[in-house]
């Protein structure tokens, strides 16, 4: 495998469960050393996609290649290339931490001597030294999550797949996990899924938003914001008629448009949300223009910094529109099944 070839290639992946399509025609690639974030509402198909990537579940159709090897035909080799931490991080209740890591290392075909050194290293890295002789079932969630992460990176595989690694952690522990994942950048290809959007935004090089089994948006967090929400967004609190506002906006900049407005509160003020394609800041111009006009009473103007949360909501809403659109009628004659 050459340096530049992608670590993971997924093309037209489909997975059906008893008539329900969990994953519908997903395609994406992940470059070597890249950290990819998987976002999506519950039941979007994130975990299913991850399970297919690990070779645990077979796909209904489509192709998945990891480091140039097909998951469907070379499953045994794929398992040597992957470190996987499933959703909810299942761990045996009645084993000690170091014992568990040793057992997992042996299953991952690591040598005894090498394993001892590596376990010490990982216990240090994941801050687990204090609990190395404790029984896993008696540890708190934070420790358990870190054991799961330590286990996933134990054999130093080229690809790490983690399903919601930060779920149920406190902010301090999230920071530790984020640093831990950050340290893997460049060395290992990492896919993580999460509901915590700032988490993904800070950790990942690229984001893939999935909804109802389809990819609805993909790209770098900053590029995604631009693509889905426009380049910049403004919020203005004022008393005004929307038609008047729209007329004034065209004067300031033709690309400015109202994306949403709410109903007036008891004082008559309402919030208009605007978006534009330009990077330059219009806040001052907007404030001056509206303040100078007698038709408007302005209370606040602000430039909104869109979060990934906005991107996520906008992207998933967009896909619902797509999914809910009435389907075209099928052709009179069905194509023969192959």
């Amino acid at each position, binding site marked *: 495998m050459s340096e530049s070839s992608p670590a993971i290639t997924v093309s037209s992946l489909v997975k059906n*469960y008893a008539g329900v399509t969990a994953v519908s025609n997903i395609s994406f690639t992940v470059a070597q050393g890249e950290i990819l974030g998987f976002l999506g509402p519950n039941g979007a198909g994130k975990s299913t996609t991850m399970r297919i990537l*690990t070779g*645990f579940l077979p796909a209904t159709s489509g192709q998945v290649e990891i480091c140039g090897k097909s998951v469907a035909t070379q499953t045994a080799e794929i398992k040597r290339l992957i470190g996987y*931490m499933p959703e909810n991080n*299942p761990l*045996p209740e009645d*084993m000690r931490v170091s014992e568990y890591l040793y057992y997992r290392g042996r*299953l*991952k*075909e690591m040598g005894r001597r090498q394993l001892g050194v590596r376990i010490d290293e990982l216990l240090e890295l994941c801050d687990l030294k204090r609990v190395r002789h404790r029984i896993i079932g008696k540890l708190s969630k934070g420790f358990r999550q870190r054991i799961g992460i330590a286990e996933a990176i134990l054999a130093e595989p080229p690809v790490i797949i983690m399903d919601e690694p930060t779920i149920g952690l406190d902010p301090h522990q999230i920071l530790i996990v984020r640093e831990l994942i950050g340290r893997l950048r460049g060395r290992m290809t990492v896919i993580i899924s999460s509901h915590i959007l700032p988490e993904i935004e800070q950790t990942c090089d690229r984001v893939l938003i999935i909804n109802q089994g389809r990819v609805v948006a993909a790209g770098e967090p900053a590029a995604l914001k631009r693509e889905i929400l426009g380049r910049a967004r403004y919020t203005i609190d004022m008393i005004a008629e929307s038609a008047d506002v729209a007329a004034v906006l065209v004067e300031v900049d033709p690309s400015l448009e109202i994306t949403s407005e709410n109903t007036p509160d008891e004082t008559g003020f309402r919030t208009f949300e605007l978006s534009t394609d330009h990077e330059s800041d219009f806040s001052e111009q907007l404030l001056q223009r509206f303040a100078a006009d007698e038709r408007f009473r302005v209370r606040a103007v602000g430039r909104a910094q869109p979060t990934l949360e906005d991107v996520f909501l906008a992207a998933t809403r967009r896909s619902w529109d797509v999914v809910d659109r009435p389907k075209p009628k099928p052709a009179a004659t069905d194509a023969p099944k192959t």
Partner: protein
Amino acid sequence: MRHFLTILGHEVRMLLVSPSTYIAAVTFLAFMGFIFAGILAEYSSVPQESSPAVAFFELFWVPVIFMVPLLTMKSISEERRLGTLETLLTTPISTGEVILGKYGAAYLLYLSLWAGTGGLFYILHRFTQDAFLLDLGPMIGGYLFIAVSGLFFVAIGIFASSLSRNQAVAGILGVVILFGVIIGTQLVAGLATLNLEAFAPLKATVEYARVFQHLDDFSRGIVDTRQLLFYFSGACLTLILSILGLEAKLLHS
């Protein structure tokens, strides 16, 4: 093979540190001790034709039907319930190795429990020195039968465990299947209807699969390869079914 040994070692260690193993062992040995004492009491009151080993092994089914499911019911259903099967199967090991590793550990424990009953015969030998009471033939035959039939019975327990993620259901299922194989064949063989000529092939089949008949033969020192084949092939078939069952469950998980 390397993974099989890793899993086997792990499973044996987990069995050895688990309190339930010791509870099972003590209960088993206490129960077998009572049976043994009962047999000896009978021998001391009325002279008997066969040696105590024969009478002792005739009751093998009581612990087998209850102990084997207890030993095996946890093995796969627990992994499925906790979800650790998913992490296990995303390492470079196959479903077959997982099943065989767990089977091997359960079988070793089963053998060691039975080996413990050897102590009963030792005590008898220590205090009586009676050659009749300690007839080596039926004893070796009996233990050989336990070892060979155990291959099949433990496999049945593993199979039952692979069918459900609920330990209790797996246990009950194991008891039912074992009851069917051990007692069921005996009951069916006793049916008068089978003597009809039309049922002759069925009668031959049931006779072939009669576990008590096998025990009788082993106790008398007859080691029939057909019977060995019955247990070996039964164990293989059940293990293959367990592997297939587990994989089918994964496909639909």
